[in-house]
């Protein structure tokens, strides 16, 4: 049934904003394969996009993507709503897996060389090439634009490229404590701007 995976642009606003609900995840936890197919359709582009963004390599991305989706299937019963939405739970697994892979595959030195070759100070530039079709996407971008450059770079290098905060410190030539603070301040500002509550 591959035709069920549609490009996202033409879909209606309602379909685009649909989220995985705790109920759906609960059905998945009870081995409901149709529910898992539904979850796949809702999350595949978001999971694959992040994996691909962090890893860049297509073959590795496909592999890690499949691992993530299966981990979601296997661990659905372990989801705890007090620790965030199902989407966040899935994206946290995704980021962890992608970053684990990129960190085990490359030495720090390799990564620093690569980073130097790609203008690291602009992790959001490539991101901005995609069209923001949904309200939430426009909101994320609008909120990002309220950050200081240092906050934005620190967050972008960690989230989109999988760097640890000591690596970010070394790439940006700033102190460890400063990076930690910028990451936290930046996320707090984003949180308030997007109205995220626990």
């Amino acid at each position: 049934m591959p035709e069920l995976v549609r490009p996202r642009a033409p879909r209606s606003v309602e379909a685009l904003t649909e989220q995985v609900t705790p109920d759906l995840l609960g059905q998945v936890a009870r081995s409901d394969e149709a529910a898992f197919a539904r979850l796949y359709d809702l999350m595949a582009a978001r999971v694959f996009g992040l994996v691909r963004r962090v890893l860049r390599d297509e073959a590795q991305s496909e592999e890690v993507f499949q691992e993530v989706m299966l981990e979601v299937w296997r661990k659905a019963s372990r989801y705890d709503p007090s620790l965030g939405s199902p989407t966040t739970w899935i994206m946290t697994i995704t980021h962890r897996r992608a970053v684990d892979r990129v960190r085990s595959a490359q030495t720090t030195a390799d990564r620093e060389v690569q980073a130097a070759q790609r203008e690291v100070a602009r992790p959001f530039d490539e991101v901005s090439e995609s069209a923001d079709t949904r309200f939430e996407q426009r909101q994320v971008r609008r909120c990002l634009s309220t950050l200081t450059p240092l906050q934005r770079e620190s967050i972008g290098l960690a989230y989109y490229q999988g760097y640890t905060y000591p690596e970010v410190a070394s790439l940006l030539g700033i102190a460890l404590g400063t990076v930690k603070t910028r990451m936290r301040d930046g996320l707090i500002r984003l949180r308030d701007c997007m109205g995220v509550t626990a």
Partner: protein
Amino acid sequence: MTTADQHLMTGAWALNATDDGERTAFEEHLRECETCLTEAVEMRETAARLSMLVELTPPPHLRDRVLAAAATTRQDRPDSPRPVTELRPRRPWIRRAAVLVAAASVLGVVVAGVQHNMRLSGEVEALQQVAARYEQLNSLISAPDAKTVSRKASNGGSGIAVFSAAQNKVLFLAADLPPLPPDRSYQLWVVDGVGPHPADVLTDGQPVVMDFVEGAEKLAVTVEPLGGSDLPTTGPVVSLPYA
């Protein structure tokens, strides 16, 4: 680390920008600090939204593959004690990427030791390749007690493990195991008196690094559905005594 320092870690933690040790320490801290937990949950929710800007539809054929693999993959039981984050491996003695620094140090010693008995040329080569890749990390800790065990796998290839109780580390590396169908993975197990405990799914050429488990009897590798199982579903292709 002081509590004030810990509190500043929420951002780096939510962005997954810490090493394993710091993450563990921070999550311990979260157990005792309710306001920190609230902030941490909100930060992670916030970070997750950044993924909305990079969406990309995966190749369509992956859908059938993932759904088919799920249909044959047993799900984890819900009753296990739940850590603050779901994301740490369930067995606390299994660690991965961040311990590669330690792995590099063990490897240096091992490569020397293994070369000494020349029969393991394939494994030596594999180890040297891995060691070379992590050479830069090079915070070499000497492990005078490191023991190396190698066994041929029943399906070709072999497994090699390095044990250092002093460093509390075990490293496992498979060499030349035959490729599997796309819906299968090799999975490593630590076997003790109770039975097999899942370690990690093996990735080509990547060592698995674990804490040393007192009283373990064997390491074993089986073929499992993609992504691994809770319990082995097939017999081991290779099994090594725990040194």
